[in-house]
């Protein structure tokens, strides 16, 4: 039996919840399904720490926020999307305030802002250093108000259902019973988040396996700009737990093994003394963009200036000079995490850090209204690419993005649902039955099999780190293509020990692995085709940016064997491509 | 679908130290009530006659009375200490952004305990 809704939202993170509330508020008659493979408040938005950007203070301007974002993304951002984003941002964050988000405050009671990497002016709203946590819980709790939002917690979506050229729902497994259901709807929104887990060392939680991207890819929808993968410069060695950029926003510094602030050697400006009241200077040194900082680390390592430890090389992030009081007030989570996970109290000792995979700039290709090329299918959040992040996202833009575009996707999907009422239930049920058959045949009732999920996963990790890391080259990428081919092959002899239905997490891990392989494929092929260096995509064989040929978005389409890459122009409205300037006057 | 629910035994409070201490804390109330009864007896006698009062005082020297007092004292002291330690949880004060530390509030409570005890001794026993 199929479940029937007006709209189904896949993903209960920040983007999915914001979409649900948007529809709940404006269209109380529409019945919405919120499908999520974990309880919404477990979504990885919960881990975001630093803050969310929006112009609110008098010294700031929309133009500056646009320009910072576009320059930060090395002109790969669609400028119409950025303008819309920047204009809507303050409204969305105030809306969050009205819903109860405990933003940190100034003495006069207005919200406080802090500086962030690549931003000319401090415009990052924050709730101590648990901003994502507070946003997600505020959204989730607020969503409980709307009784037209029906939650399907711990339901794992497996496939986008297309009928008559329109997206008319998804199939999903109710994990507690193991039963697969067709969830039919007039429009569908994908809000499934990122795919950091295709890499071994990442700030992303276990659930970030790129499911939505893979589902869209398999449904024939292109994935855009997949080669742009953000490394965050400050992850904890070993676990990859993030130390937020806010640590640097508050004045933390990065030093190599000689105690030298090495960033000054990488065209990021000159350091001010840490006691200088002007430190830290926006858009300079430690407050440069993440791609440049992560690349600087690799260069420093080549010079053997990094510190060696059991979990690889590191540099030091030093925040001791902020003092205990400020650290406890503004960066309590940083202190909690470093104390718990590496036994270091940042009040007294510098924190060892190294670059770590953090964010996917690319994702499901959407228009500025969050539409995909498949009518009835919308996408928003980290799984989508509208694109405001270009070749390198600025920290604190993404939390705002999930709100702005989450709400927009909700509204657009509501309009679509109101205009398209017919659903072909019978055909959907049949598709659902086929999908169930596939899963039973390939996994649940499959005999034999020799490949452990963990082994294949490890191998993807290896190949991704080696060939699509901070620096890439043609030879490495070509090897990676072969490897992916091999892994796809071996996936068909996957070993599933658990044949039971209830909460079969081995099955879901296998499905996630399948998704990861698809996402990895699109990343590798996109990276191979982009023969230039831009933002987070640095080719050792093509050192320069090439606007002539590559000021274009890449679109990866699935084919039988490998990705087919096409290109699409970047939307440029007001800000012609220029040089990225950090640490000096523009 | 079926789920499994671990049954809770009636001796759950013997299975972990914190639970055991909790139940002991709750049982102190028995001794509170017991001492209330004793106080009533004491007042009745003290309000009655010299003889009645003298007999009572004499009986207080008996081992029974001493055992009663000793046990009651132990439990009531436990009651008092747990009670005072939990007080800061209920009384929360802020001075601007800073919360007044629990230790300070508990300290104030203990201080007043001392003062009250002194006043009572002075009132009953005289200078």
């Amino acid at each position, binding site marked *: 039996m199929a479940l029937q809704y007006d709209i189904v939202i896949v993903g209960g993170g920040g983007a999915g919840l914001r979409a649900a509330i948007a529809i709940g508020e404006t269209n109380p008659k529409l019945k919405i399904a919120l499908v999520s493979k974990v309880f919404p*408040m*477990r979504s990885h938005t919960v881990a975001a720490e630093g803050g969310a950007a929006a112009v609110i203070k008098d010294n700031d301007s929309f133009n500056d926020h646009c320009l910072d974002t576009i320059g930060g993304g090395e002109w790969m951002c669609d400028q119409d999307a950025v303008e819309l984003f920047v204009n809507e941002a303050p409204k969305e964050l*105030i809306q969050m305030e009205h819903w*109860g988000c405990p933003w940190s405050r100034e003495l006069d009671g207005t919200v406080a802002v802090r500086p962030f990497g690549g931003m000319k002016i401090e415009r990052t709203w924050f709730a101590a250093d648990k901003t994502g946590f507070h946003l997600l819980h505020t959204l989730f709790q607020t969503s409980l108000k709307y009784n037209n939002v029906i939650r399907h917690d711990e339901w794992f979506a497996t496939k986008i259902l297309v009928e008559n050229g329109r997206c008319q729902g998804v199939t999903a497994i109710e994990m507690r019973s193991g039963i697969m259901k067709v969830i039919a709807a007039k429009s569908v929104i994908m809000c499934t988040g990122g795919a950091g887990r295709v890499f071994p060392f990442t700030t992303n939680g276990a659930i970030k396996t790129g499911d939505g991207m893979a589902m869209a890819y398999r449904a024939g929808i292109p994935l855009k700009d997949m080669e742009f993968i953000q490394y965050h410069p400050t992850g904890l060695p070993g676990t990859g737990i993030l130390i937020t950029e806010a640590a640097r926003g508050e004045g933390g510094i990065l030093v190599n093994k000689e105690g030298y602030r090495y960033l000054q050697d990488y065209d990021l400006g000159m350091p001010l003394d840490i006691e200088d009241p002007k430190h830290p200077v926006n858009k300079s040194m430690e407050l440069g963009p993440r791609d440049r900082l992560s690349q600087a680390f690799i260069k420093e390592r080549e010079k053997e200036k990094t510190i060696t430890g*059991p979990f690889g090389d590191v540099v030091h992030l030093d925040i001791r000079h902020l003092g205990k009081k400020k650290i406890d007030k503004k960066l309590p989570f940083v202190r909690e995490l470093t104390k718990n996970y590496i036994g270091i109290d940042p009040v007294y000792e510098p924190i*060892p850090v190294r670059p770590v995979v953090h964010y996917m700039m690319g994702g499901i290709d959407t228009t500025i209204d969050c539409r995909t090329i498949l009518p009835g299918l919308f996408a928003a959040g980290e799984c989508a690419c509208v694109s405001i992040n270009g070749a390198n996202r600025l920290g604190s833009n993404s939390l705002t993005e999930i709100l702005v575009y989450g709400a927009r996707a909700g509204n657009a999907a509501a309009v679509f649902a109101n205009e398209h009422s017919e659903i072909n239930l019978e055909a959907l049920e049949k598709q659902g039955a086929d999908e169930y058959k596939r899963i039973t045949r390939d996994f649940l009732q499959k005999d034999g099999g020799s490949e452990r999920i963990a082994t294949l996963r490890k191998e993807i990790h290896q190949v991704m780190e080696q060939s699509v890391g901070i620096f890439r080259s043609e030879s490495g990428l070509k090897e990676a293509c072969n490897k992916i081919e091999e892994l796809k092959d071996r996936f068909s002899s996957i070993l599933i020990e658990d044949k039971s239905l209830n*909460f079969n997490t081995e099955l879901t891990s296998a499905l996630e692995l399948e998704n990861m392989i698809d996402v990895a494929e699109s990343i590798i092929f996109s990276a191979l085709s982009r023969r230039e260096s831009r933002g987070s995509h640095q080719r050792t064989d093509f050192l320069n940016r090439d606007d002539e040929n590559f000021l274009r978005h890449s679109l990866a389409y699935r084919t039988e064997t490998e990705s087919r890459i096409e290109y699409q122009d970047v939307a440029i409205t007001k800000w012609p491509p220029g040089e990225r300037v950090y640490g000096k006057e523009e | 679908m079926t789920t499994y629910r671990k049954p809770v035994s009636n001796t*759950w*409070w013997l299975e972990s130290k914190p639970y055991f201490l909790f139940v002991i804390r709750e049982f102190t109330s028995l001794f509170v009530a017991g001492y209330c009864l004793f106080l009533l007896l004491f007042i009745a006698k003290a309000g009655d006659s010299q003889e009645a009062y003298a007999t009572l005082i004499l009986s207080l020297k008996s081992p029974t009375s001493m055992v009663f007092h000793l046990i009651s004292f132990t439990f009531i002291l436990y009651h008092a200490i747990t009670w005072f330690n939990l007080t800061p949880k209920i009384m929360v004060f802020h001075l*601007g952004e800073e919360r007044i530390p629990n230790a300070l509030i508990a300290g104030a409570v203990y201080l007043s305990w001392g003062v009250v005890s002194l006043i009572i001794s002075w009132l009953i026993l005289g200078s």
Partner: protein
Amino acid sequence: MATRRTCLWKRGVKVSETFEMEIFRYYPDKDNEPFIKSYEVPFRDDWVVLDAINYIKDEIDGTLSYRWSCRMGVCGSCGMMVNSVPKLTCSAFLKDYPSRKIRVEPLQGFPVERDLIFDMDDFMNKLTEVKPYLLRKEGEEKPLEEGEYLQSPAELAHYKQYTLCINCMLCYAACPIYALDSNFVGPAAIALAQRYNLDSRDQGRNQRQEVIASHEGIWECTFVGECSVVCPKDVDPAAAIQRAKVSSTLDWFKEKMIPRSKG
């Protein structure tokens, strides 16, 4: 290389042989009785209990089911009983169990659905009941164009602690009262109601009282206090409940002493 003592990552990882880890297993469709299974796992200094469980799932027994995601103590999904104490397994280090006896069971007090996975529905319903969202009186909502509600850092400090709950359910697992009577609204849900009650922007306390001030609400709590002891985020739900008792008692007196004082 070992320059500093305190620093785990620098001291190097000690992998000292293996240990037996006991895990609670339960298949709802196969057998009605759960059982304990033990696994041989490397004992690594830098590992948390969750790492060892992941090791089992990845390398030994793919059929083990449990929840986890962030592995940084913030998503709230990995709560389990570790040697009978409710813990976030992603923040419980193996080295803190030097006796090398570790038994992992699902959080107690909840129905078990499979292996280490328990049923959260009850909490989700309760959370909905206590209306954990900002409520304003009719006509007193500020339009978005007029900006944020002002709130001083001091006002923020009044409720901040209660916003930190990650819904990990450790407090429920620690509360014997909840184990005895699952009608009890319970620590986290009450703390979250209190979070909004104490927020200077909120005007919805009356609406929450219905559930909070009922028998199954605050009055069923006998201040065992273990909820606060196990809470990984120092939310102190026990205090939240006792404070709610004080204010509900004040309400009662106000109502009885000053008739018709409420508007």
